[in-house]
């Protein structure tokens, strides 16, 4: 009797706490479903780059919190050719991670939902695919490498168990066979003594070693696209150099395309062929790494490059960007960067500014781009 009374008071207390908790309104405590809800208003019909491995067209991802709509991604176009590495650069909150997570439906619903656009993996529209099909594709054709390897790996299973699970989930094979393949994967990511290492737990490995295990897992099923979300940000520079050159070598060996998310222009120049700069949920500039870094056309890109100290140029006064990025539930009309832009003019604040081509795949979303002669 006392037990029942105590439990019922507990239950009542929990209920009251949950009702009063402000986090509940945003849906943080409700269990997210296995895949992001897709509610597309407009669906693009045609592919512009039919040869690409992955093409994203006009992707829009929103978060509905209370009565506010946060437009985290407001119309992204990008494509990845086989064996190519595309870098996405931007400040935190610019929507780079949400773009990457939207592709495989990893954005938590509620509150997230995909409200427009299409993503084609070869000829298959990922947003139209069934849940079962997406489950098959995750980890097989499209693999993710996340920033923090320690929270990606399960602490209670050996890395061997986890690699074997990744293999056997997608292809029926005998355990011994999977074990041999797992050891081979570890050798591929340059881990010495792979057979022994398979028996170790994540906490027994160093940070760089763990990230290599995560990359091995992403390679387990010959993925066509690897989405790497800041894979080296948590690592030391020496380890970062190892991981970057490893990824660079692997994509050449297996011709997997890499979508590489980072905020570091140094990392971009080390590995990416092309780069897209994001600001407030949109791509503001895209082009080959060389063009964008040497002669940026968008004032934001210029500012972003100028505010990072560069090794070997210590006397450079850092040019900080004043102000803060706009909150994405209340985006201004016209250019989102207008409020912080040194070259702003009166018509920057009206209408939608298109991504205008500058030739050679270099595009910029600016009415008054920096002049090519004065850019460098």
């Amino acid at each position, binding site marked *: 009797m006392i037990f029942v009374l105590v439990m019922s008071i507990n239950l009542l207390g929990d209920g009251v706490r949950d009702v009063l908790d402000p986090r509940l309104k945003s849906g943080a405590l409700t269990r997210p479903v296995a895949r992001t809800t897709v509610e597309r208003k407009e669906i693009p019909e045609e592919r512009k780059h039919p040869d690409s491995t992955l093409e994203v067209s006009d992707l829009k991802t929103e978060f509905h919190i209370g009565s506010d709509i946060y437009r985290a991604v407001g119309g992204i176009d990008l494509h990845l050719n086989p064996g190519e590495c595309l870098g996405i650069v931007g*400040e*935190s909150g610019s929507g780079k991670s949400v773009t990457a997570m939207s592709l495989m439906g990893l954005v938590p619903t509620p509150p997230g939902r995909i409200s427009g656009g299409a993503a084609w993996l070869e000829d298959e529209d990922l947003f139209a695919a069934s849940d079962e099909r997406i489950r098959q594709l995750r980890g097989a054709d499209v693999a993710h490498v996340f920033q923090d390897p320690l929270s990606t790996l399960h602490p209670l299973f050996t890395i061997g168990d986890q690699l074997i699970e990744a293999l056997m989930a997608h292809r029926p094979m005998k355990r011994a066979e999977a074990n041999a393949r797992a050891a081979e994967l570890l050798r591929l990511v*340059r881990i*010495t003594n792979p057979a022994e290492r398979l028996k170790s737990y994540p906490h027994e490995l*160093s*940070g*760089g070693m763990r990230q290599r295990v995560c990359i091995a897992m992403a390679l387990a099923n010959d993925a066509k696209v690897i989405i790497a979300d800041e894979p080296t940000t948590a690592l*030391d*520079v*020496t380890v*970062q*150099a*190892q991981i*970057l*050159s*490893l990824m660079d070598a692997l994509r050449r060996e297996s011709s997997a395309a890499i979508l590489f998310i980072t*905020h*570091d*222009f*140094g*990392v*971009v*120049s*080390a590995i990416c062929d092309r780069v897209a700069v994001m600001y407030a949920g949109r791509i503001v500039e895209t082009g080959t790494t060389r063009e964008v*870094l*040497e002669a940026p056309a968008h004032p934001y890109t210029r*500012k*972003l*490059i100028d*505010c*990072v*100290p*560069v*090794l*070997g140029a*210590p006397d*450079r*006064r*850092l*040019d*900080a*960007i004043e102000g*803060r990025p706009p909150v994405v539930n209340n985006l201004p009309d016209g250019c989102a960067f207008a409020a912080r832009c040194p070259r702003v003019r009166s018509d920057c604040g009206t209408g939608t500014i298109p991504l205008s081509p500058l030739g050679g795949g270099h595009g910029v979303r600016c009415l008054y781009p920096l002049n090519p002669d004065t850019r460098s």
Partner: protein
Amino acid sequence: MTEPALLKIENAERVFGGGHTLFGRQLPAVHAVQGISLNVRKGETLGIVGESGCGKSTLARLIVGLDTPTGGSITFDGIDLVAEAKRDPRKLARRVQYVFQDPVASLNPRKTIRTILETPLRHLLGLDRETREERLKELMDAVNLAPEFLDRFPHEFSGGQAQRIGIARALAADPEVIVLDEPVSALDVSVQAQVLNILDDLRQRFGLTYVFISHDLSVVESVSDRVAVLYFGRLAELGTAQRIFAAPRHPYTHLLLKSAPVPGKRSLIPEDANTELPDPYNPPPGCAFFARCPRGTDICTNAQPPLSAAAGHPEHQAACYHPVEENEDA
């Protein structure tokens, strides 16, 4: 460079663990910091770099008295810090302050910015209400924040603003030395530049001395006058920032510089991934970098290399038997 040393670290050592169990069994010990000797001169910025686990933060905690060294001495203007901190921690806090890495976590979420900034004013400087009010305005102005922010709570601020409040709190006590432990690592690049510029302005305005800890080589290069490179709890190289980055002598510094990604540089030269890092519980008798070093010989495995100065540059010291000389490609 004729300024006398303000902060003198001599042979500082910090051992974690050790001791015995109840039955007399020896417990393992880790030498987090061993045999570090450094001088910090008035008005300069000393940068400390190294990989994670090399003892950067432990050294910083020793300097501000958050931790006590197990050996050696740290003196501030001739006064022993450890003895001082035991007797009167406030006296030390008035002269040396600390800025933490995580800006939001280092501010008490239940207190307003006013309370947070007033605490050092009241307890360390003992100011009365009116002078406090005036000083608060000055502080907020110094870090470029509007005075209206004083009555808000820490969660209402972005990372960059919170870090500026952290800096204002360190400034409040009117210290001579500020130890900055990775102050910009948690910030976005655009915000990082704002904070670095503010730090630079404050140093010139108030004649501060900084000990700047970071793992980001380019940030350290842009702020420091002198740089100390740590490896495995020991000093690997010490010299002016210009010399360290232009003509590094220790192979480890070379490796760090080679590994850092630079915009516009296409290829990275990684070291061989198979190298074993030294075991902190069982450190090698010789140079800890030996296993990763391309220049190592037998002498390196036998004894710790002492710090030796470069020819013509007595300030530039490296703990290596085979340092990389100028005009030589490592």
